[in-house]
């Protein structure tokens, strides 16, 4: 069965880019454009195998989203990758502390993204 990946980004270009890349590779992809919408969808029963989120988004940023998700039993151990333009070590440390699985700086090539996904999703 195809693994499910949930992508959160306020940029239509990023969503299109990542979604198409993952779908071509055989994944089922769901998406949201900010942290609040993502949390709503995830609380309503969607249980992805992996979450990829941006940091700078309206309403709720990616770090707050991770913080909220880690309090929910369903998402305590779900791998969460951050895909962002940010590059500061302190932000990476904060993300790690909040429970993120990895940090990717945009733009990430399609094959690199798929390689990382295979690493965090064994058997994918």
């Amino acid at each position, binding site marked *: 069965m195809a693994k499910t990946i949930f992508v959160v*980004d306020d*940029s239509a*270009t*990023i969503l*299109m*880019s*990542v979604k*198409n*890349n993952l779908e*071509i*590779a055989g994944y089922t992809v769901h998406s949201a454009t900010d942290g609040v919408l993502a949390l709503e969808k995830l609380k309503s029963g969607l249980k992805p195998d992996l979450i990829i989120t941006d940091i*700078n988004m309206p309403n709720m940023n990616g770090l707050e989203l991770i913080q909220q998700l880690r309090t929910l039993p369903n998402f305590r151990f779900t791998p969460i990758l951050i895909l962002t*333009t*940010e*590059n*500061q070590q302190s*932000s*990476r440390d904060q*993300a*790690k502390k909040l429970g*993120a*699985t*990895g*940090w*990717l*700086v*945009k*733009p*990430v*090539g*399609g*094959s*690199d*993204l*798929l390689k*990382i996904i295979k*690493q*965090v999703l064994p058997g994918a």
Partner: protein
Amino acid sequence: MTTENLNTEKEPINDDIQMANQQAASMMVSHMRLDEVLAGQLNGVVVDTEDAAMSLIMRGRKLSDDTHALLKHLESSTGKIVGAEQSSDQVSQDYKALFTLVTEHNASLAAEIAEMLGQIQFQDVVRQRIERIEQAVNKRNALFQAFVEKVDDLDPSLQTLPDKMQDVLNEYLELENRHAASINDESTVKIELF
């Protein structure tokens, strides 16, 4: 009014004019520094944009050339297979070889498309850089507006404007430093698993 009175009045006016001139000069220096930095950043955005566009064009052209070459090869191979008097084993082998070729081409096509989709993310990187420049310019404009409004009154708060201008520049640079300097920035650790 006597000449003596006039001279007494003139001194504070001269002081005020001198203060206003100093403030204006200080503002201009801060303004030029900010403009220099923003111009450099915009130039970086332009170079990156050109690189990304060129890379996408080259990849697109390669895909088109590869597909064209494959189609030519298929056309010629199919003609040979159909035209020649061959055993069914030979025909089967020829078709297998063609099938392998097409499969390899499809895999390479999928990989190239994945890379191109990744490069499209560049648009978002540039959008955010331009937004940060826009924010700095807006703050700078607000300071200038305040300067223009208060300059006639020789408001003492004008003296803080150069510092405020410097704050805009510092804030912008700090924000910019949080992001990767360029899509080609080799010093950036682009992928890190915790």
